[in-house]
């Protein structure tokens, strides 16, 4: 395995992928496909604790830390939303907490997702991003405490 690309590099790759779609159908078929391919979240994490409020569908995001990097997995009962969860995991999982917190995530606008999803639904996307960044913040604080003690 080579060096994990930066968040910015992954975003650029996604923007390039989406630029190949000529129609809304192709774009959503891609997102639906991503949703279908995302491995289901362990039932132990499909609880209120990991559920994200503010979505019309149920969305769960679970995170863990390994070797200073934050990893995410997640799920949703709606397949398009699950595709968005998958997209966010692809971008944010496996990076240092600070990199996740600082990520501007411009690709959401660039691939036309914020305009294609109405306000109420994109609130769900925003809630998802907010939760993932919050989780990263928690790991950052934990790592700083460990450093202080050491």
């Amino acid at each position: 395995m080579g060096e994990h690309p930066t968040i910015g590099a992954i975003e650029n790759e996604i923007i390039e992928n989406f630029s190949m779609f000529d129609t809304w159908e192709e774009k959503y078929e891609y997102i639906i496909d991503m949703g279908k391919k995302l491995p289901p979240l362990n039932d132990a994490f499909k609880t209120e604790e990991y559920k994200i409020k503010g979505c019309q569908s149920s969305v769960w995001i679970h995170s863990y830390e390994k070797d200073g990097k934050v990893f995410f997995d997640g799920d949703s009962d709606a397949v398009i939303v699950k595709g968005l969860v998958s997209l966010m995991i692809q971008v944010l999982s496996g990076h240092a907490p600070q990199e996740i917190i600082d990520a501007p995530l411009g690709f959401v606008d660039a691939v036309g997702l914020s305009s294609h999803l109405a306000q109420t639904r994109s609130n769900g996307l925003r809630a998802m991003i907010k939760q993932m960044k919050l989780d990263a913040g928690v790991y950052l604080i934990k790592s700083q405490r460990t450093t202080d003690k050491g």
Partner: protein
Amino acid sequence: MSANQTYDVQSIRNEFPILERKVKGKPLVYFDNAATAQKPKQVIDAISHYYSHYNANIHRGLHTLADEATAAFEASRAAVQSFVHAKHHEEIIFTKGTTESINLVANAWGNVFLNAGDEIIISTLEHHANIVPWQMIAEKKGAVIRIIPIDANGKLDIEAFKKMLSNKTKMVAVVHASNALGVINPVEEIIQLAHQHGALSMIDGAQSAVHLDIDVTQLDCDFFVFSGHKIYGPTGVGVLYGKKQLLESMQPYQGGGEMIKEVTFEKTTFNELPFKFEAGTPNIADVIALKPAIDFMNRIGKAFIRQHEAALLSYATEKLKMIEGLHIKGDVAEKVSVASFTIDGIHPQDLAILLDNQGIAVRTGHHCAQPLMSYLGIVGTTRVSFAAYNTKEEIDILVEALNKSIKMLK
């Protein structure tokens, strides 16, 4: 229009400017009428005309603009009075919507008449707006809320309701037509039964006022509430009808200008009806623009519109049922023009996103009726609801778009 004329849906569509617009490059198909109806040009023009020609505060000013605005405002009240067949114009109170009307009744009536141990009966079909205000006043007063059960098709269990009634029952507050399913409740019978036990009745007409003929005098309900924006009128204006004697015996809901007769720092005497319940400067422009909405329905004829909508509903129901795995929720004979459904293995939110990309506006989710959804054991439905300007061709577009969406999702 008379009964032997044909229903000219195209000329009706021409009265609604918004129907000309495109969404995502496709002609708009608007099937979210139960959330809010679109507005005919006369309604839009009335708002603009008011602000351009006679904007003034009402009931107090001694100048021409104030006189004109007051006359237009009161003409709207008269139009509403005749729309619901109330005996007196002062029985019509303007609020900002159904929700405020219910809160007004729950508080202004409940604060005076509810005591610990008293019972308020609502139904499983209620919108949150006809649940939460009652929960709040019940908690404050120590009253108890009881729920009329329904069957799997959304029909009220009237026998169970009869058994709930007792001398403890003080209020029966039920929805006329369910917003989530479209099912029409037998409110006439419910009101009679409530009265036989000395209880009052409040009918939530948010979904019924646009479709059914409303005659509060014949119904004999004590309160009837609805919103302007669901009857082709503006947002921000609602109606509370209440029997005069009852309204007089209630406390004011809010204090302020307009609702007072005399104020000293020691004591305030309240104004008479309807102003006692209309504190502050009301939503003058939108109240005035409610009249052209009522005029629109009267001109076309509510019975004529109802016939058109019933034909749309039966056409849509037939076509929808042909889709594999689709289940209509609330599949009963007596319903307003709402088709609410689930499709096996498909989340309503996914459907709404894909339909929106095809220019079609529907409503998905729990429809602010979470207790009903949990009773039906579903996360939500997809709801299509029809209005005077919808067409069979639009239903064909919907069905085609649904089939395409299902194919994409499966």
